């Protein structure tokens, strides 16, 4: 594979941070995983991938058999990209190594949104990085269908280290579905994913990430977005399946006037899952706005639901909502909403609630003829329903389907 050229300073910084623990989450011993560089055959036609892999990918929102409703596709298995294609003009989808070869200017984006020395995981991605995806939409082009990307763990004990770059040029519109999943239900693995989003003036990006891991996988995504004037970033995250340990705290920085960022996350932790998931918005430009909504359910696992909004410019507005539902006697949800304002004339607020389903609500539904189980399921389904403003109906429906597909598992 092509060696990704990073500047010396990135490598130096990474080396200095290689033992630096993350600010949050359990410390993962990266050395216990296998750094495989094993190649995978390239698939011109991704529908020719093994049926089992396709089925797994489909459950994470990645459609390979009939991808008419996709503007492009990228698939990486372990550390090898196996497919990239586009179906719509104005869209570029390729492995990040190809992109680095193609575009000299890409180094201007490399580690500009995420700091390479954030922690040992970012450092590890820089030092032992095996690809990732590059998705770009050219100025003024608007994708109708989403680009899909799949990061797939196949080999046991694999460490998958990816660095993704997403660029929406001025006045463009880009929708992305990323599905991350594993071949096995029990093999351990580590997914370290750096994603840097650059949303230029007037551009709109919706990013929907569906994670379907297994109870042995550790996951440390490191994402950040920079949003310019009148730009919009809509980030949706869905985790409905067990995972051993997952910690992420994506950050969006509104650097242009009237930039908007919305984060929605839907999390479920069953026994043995440990999640520490937050969203952070830094409102640095006049009139920028954010809304962060998180819904967390535990059926026995532990969840820390974080949120942070910082207002550093006039007329910024932000709202943070963390709601947690404890469905069984076991499990823990800790909601930590934080707001920071550094000047007058800003408007930041939050609400947080953690509890069980109110008996009064269950009985209300039972009085309409629903059984206790049906009533509980209806309330849980309602709790998980996040109506995302600005998300195209097609994506909204797919997101809802992904959530509903897993609902029965938690009931």
């Amino acid at each position, binding site marked *: 594979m092509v060696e990704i050229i990073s500047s010396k300073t990135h490598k130096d910084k990474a080396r200095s941070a290689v033992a630096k623990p993350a600010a949050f989450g359990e410390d993962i011993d990266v050395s216990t995983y296998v750094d495989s560089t094993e190649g995978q055959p390239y698939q011109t036609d991704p529908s020719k991938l093994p049926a089992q892999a396709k089925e797994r990918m489909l459950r994470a929102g990645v459609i390979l058999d009939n991808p008419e409703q996709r503007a492009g596709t990228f698939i990486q298995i372990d550390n090898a990209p196996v497919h990239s294609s586009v179906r719509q003009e104005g869209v570029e989808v390729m492995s990040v190594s190809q992109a680095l070869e193609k575009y000299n200017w890409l180094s201007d984006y490399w580690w500009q949104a995420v700091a390479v020395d954030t922690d040992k995981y970012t450092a590890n991605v820089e030092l032992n990085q095996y690809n990732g995806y590059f998705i770009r939409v050219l100025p003024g082009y608007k994708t109708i269908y989403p680009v899909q990307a799949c990061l797939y763990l196949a080999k046991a004990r694999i460490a998958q280290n990816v660095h993704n770059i997403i660029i929406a040029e001025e006045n463009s519109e880009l929708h992305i579905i990323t599905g991350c999943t594993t071949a096995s239900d029990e093999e351990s693995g580590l997914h370290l994913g750096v994603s840097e989003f650059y949303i230029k003036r007037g551009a709109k990006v919706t990013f929907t990430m569906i994670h379907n891991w297994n109870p042995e996988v550790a996951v440390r995504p490191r994402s950040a977005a920079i949003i310019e004037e009148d730009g919009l970033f809509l980030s949706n995250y869905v985790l409905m399946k067990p995972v051993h340990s997952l910690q992420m705290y994506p950050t969006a920085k509104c650097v242009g006037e009237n930039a908007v960022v919305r984060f929605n996350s839907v999390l479920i932790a069953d026994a043995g899952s440990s999640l520490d998931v937050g969203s952070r918005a830094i409102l640095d430009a006049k009139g920028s706005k954010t809304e962060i909504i998180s819904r967390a359910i535990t059926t026995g696992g532990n969840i820390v639901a974080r949120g942070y909004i910082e207002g550093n410019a006039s007329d910024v507005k932000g709202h943070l909502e963390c709601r947690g539902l404890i469905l069984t006697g076991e499990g823990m949800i800790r909601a930590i909403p934080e707001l920071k304002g550094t000047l007058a004339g800003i408007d930041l607020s939050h609400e947080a609630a953690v509890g069980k389903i109110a008996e009064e*609500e269950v*009985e*209300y539904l*039972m*009085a*309409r*003829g629903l059984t*206790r189980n049906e009533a509980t399921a209806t309330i849980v389904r309602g709790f998980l329903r996040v109506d995302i403003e600005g998300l195209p109906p097609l994506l909204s429906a797919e997101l809802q389907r992904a959530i509903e597909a897993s609902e029965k598992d938690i009931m």
Partner: protein
Amino acid sequence: MKDAALSIEQLTVEVEGREILHNINLGMKLGETHVLFGPNGSGKTTLLMAIMGFPKYRITKGKIIFKGQDITKLPLDERARLGIGMSFQRPPVVRGVKMRDMVAACLKGQEHEERIGQLAEKADLVDFLDREMNYGFSGGEIKRSELVQLLAQRPTLALIDEPESGVDLVNIALIGELLNSLLEKDCPIPERKCMGLIITHTGHILDYVNARTGYVMCDGVIGCEGDSREILATIREKGYQECVRCFLRRAPGG
């Protein structure tokens, strides 16, 4: 009562260890509408909740016979499926559950998209179908939404708690229409398949809905029973104090 579709016999109900209703007797036939008057705190809502089967309202004595079946020990949801429905005075907010979902649930999986729209239109709630249940609803909107659910559910026995409370004049006329439709008032009495028991504190709803029998509830017992309009006239003229005084005069040892 002979031919009664609902027969309540010597019903005693306690809530959190305290006896609220004592020896209630009441009977209704299909096609009838009865109203339950009474001062605040007299036990009207407790009676409806006990008939509906809410676990907090514990029946310690007596029985409820509905359509020939003793339902005294039947759980809430089974009573609902058997044909008892309730319009709540203050229903809970259910975040995330849309009114559309609730109406669909009440229609029990029938082909319903069109029907939901029709019902919402009838109650002037089309814009509410995609709103979260009772979240930010006004008094009138809550009542109308409750009645839409009952119209979808089509219960044999409709228990209606204070349909006019917190409702303005425009709304109350519409609520009256919905109630008349629910209770099949446009059908000859022998052809009706349902009956209603309405709680009213002020009696305003009787300007819109006819009711055969009225009861005055005082301190957990039915103090008197008679023509609903006659009772209302007395209450309007003399207030509930007179009902209570009258009741105490007749009470054993009173």
